[in-house]
């Protein structure tokens, strides 16, 4: 996927993702402090605005970095800082990439997951966005067909969210709920699932 198409697809996906803001807010109110809805809606809107401003010659790295800065500043929160750091970490593996392949997307997701694990001092199974992101990164390994890869990513993200319902939150405000967090889907992992789904919807719309 070349830079211009990538830019269009991100903006299209985030426009769809904003529709999930209320759902994410409600999930986060049950488990955290309820600001995930605004982080996602304000962050997505800021990224869309920033990407519209990018010059035509912007590369995939430029796009990822502009997205990170915009997301971080739109509504500063722990999640915004973690996501922005993850996007910057992902952008580093795209240093020389002009045309993003499935392998490049996989490398990006894996680097982003590593960043969130380190910055958030979190592991898979702690019931966070990392559970979804790591599952998506794994699902993209050795994929060769774009549509199949995206479907695999969506399936993996949804399965990861389903799995978080059985887990007890171990990071952030949700950890204070202890066993009461069991039974509820993790809001961060759900946000990632909705983003991957939005990526498909935006592509279908484009076609």
């Amino acid at each position: 996927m070349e830079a211009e198409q990538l830019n269009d697809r991100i903006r299209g996906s985030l426009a769809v993702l904003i529709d999930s803001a209320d759902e994410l807010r409600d999930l986060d109110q049950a488990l955290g402090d309820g600001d995930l809805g605004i982080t996602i809606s304000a962050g997505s809107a800021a990224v869309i605005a920033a990407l519209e401003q990018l010059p035509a010659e912007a590369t995939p790295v430029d796009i990822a970095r502009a997205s990170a800065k915009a997301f971080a500043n739109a509504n500063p929160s722990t999640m915004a800082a973690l996501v922005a750091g993850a996007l910057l970490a992902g952008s580093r593996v795209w240093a020389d990439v002009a045309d993003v392949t499935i392998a490049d997307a996989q490398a990006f997701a894996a680097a982003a997951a590593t960043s969130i694990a380190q910055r958030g001092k979190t592991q898979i199974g702690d019931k966070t966005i990392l559970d979804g992101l790591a599952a998506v990164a794994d699902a993209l390994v050795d994929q060769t067909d774009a549509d199949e890869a995206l479907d695999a990513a969506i399936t993996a993200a949804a399965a990861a969210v389903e799995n978080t319902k059985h887990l007890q939150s171990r990071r952030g405000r949700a950890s204070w709920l202890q066993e009461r967090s069991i039974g509820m889907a993790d809001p961060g992992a759900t946000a990632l699932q909705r983003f991957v789904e939005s990526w498909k919807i935006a592509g279908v719309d484009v076609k």
Partner: protein
Amino acid sequence: MKKIINAPESFVDEFVEGILLAHPDLVKTPGDDLRVLARADAPRQGHVGIVTGGGSGHLPLFKGYVGTGLCSAVAIGNVFSSPSSDQIFEATKAVDGGAGVLYLYGNYGGDVLNFDLAADLAELEDISTRTVLGRDDVASQPRERKLDRRGVAGIIFAYKAAGAAAERGDSLDEVAAITEDVIEHTATMGIGLAPTILPTTGRPSFELEEGEMEIGIGIHGEPGSRRGPLETADEIADHVVEALVADLDLKSGARVAVMVNGLGATPLEELYVLYRRTHQILAESGIEIAKNYVGEYATSLEMAGASISLLELNDERLALLEAPAKSPFFQEG
């Protein structure tokens, strides 16, 4: 709630405006954002910049230590809230003189996330950064988990040493190593007698019964290691100094710097009563006080209480403490 404010939401910007109006020769805002403050002569070519930051409500902490021989810039957030990564990045750009920038701040989750993200942004613009965290609060974790300790008043020793090293032209690696060394040899413990009242909520940050004190309190009113009946000043000093001496493993013949810090609503007289006993205990143990600080260095608005910090000295650390420094709130030499 009785406070001298106009509106809770304008409190931070208005006290910063006051500082700028009072001390234009010492500090400036490099851009439009009042939450980012730099020393008046920044950036200084060839010198390491030192950026600190954290929530408002701790003056003179953070904003008060920007000046000659101290930090070069600061980014502050709302009361007890982290500054944004963008504000930290603005501070970074304002003080980068080509020799890199040291991030020196307390070990709090939101601050760590935002400073780390700012470091990522700085890297994109080829500004080298290093990070050293203040983590001197012995009550927050035992020594074997010292990397998880909170940063409290003892960070001022680190500001002083880092600023002196940067001022004389040390490299980023050297400044970072000196700062880490000072933090490694610093220990602090505080006691709280009455809570702060947050301007935004109008509510006390914690509650204590009459006749109770919180031992090992954090500078945001976080709980300490225990709660107990209010002791006399001498008993408080005995317990706190004993814990600090044990943590630093100080022996007879050691030299230290002592800081008796008020948390905002405790009078200087009471701090000197604490200092008196602290001095006596250390003298009895054969520990020499080579430098002392008594006053308000890191506060929590009007929280009542105090903290005591010790820095174990050697010749180098003492020389760094004694090097000249000047900010609107702190002067040496």
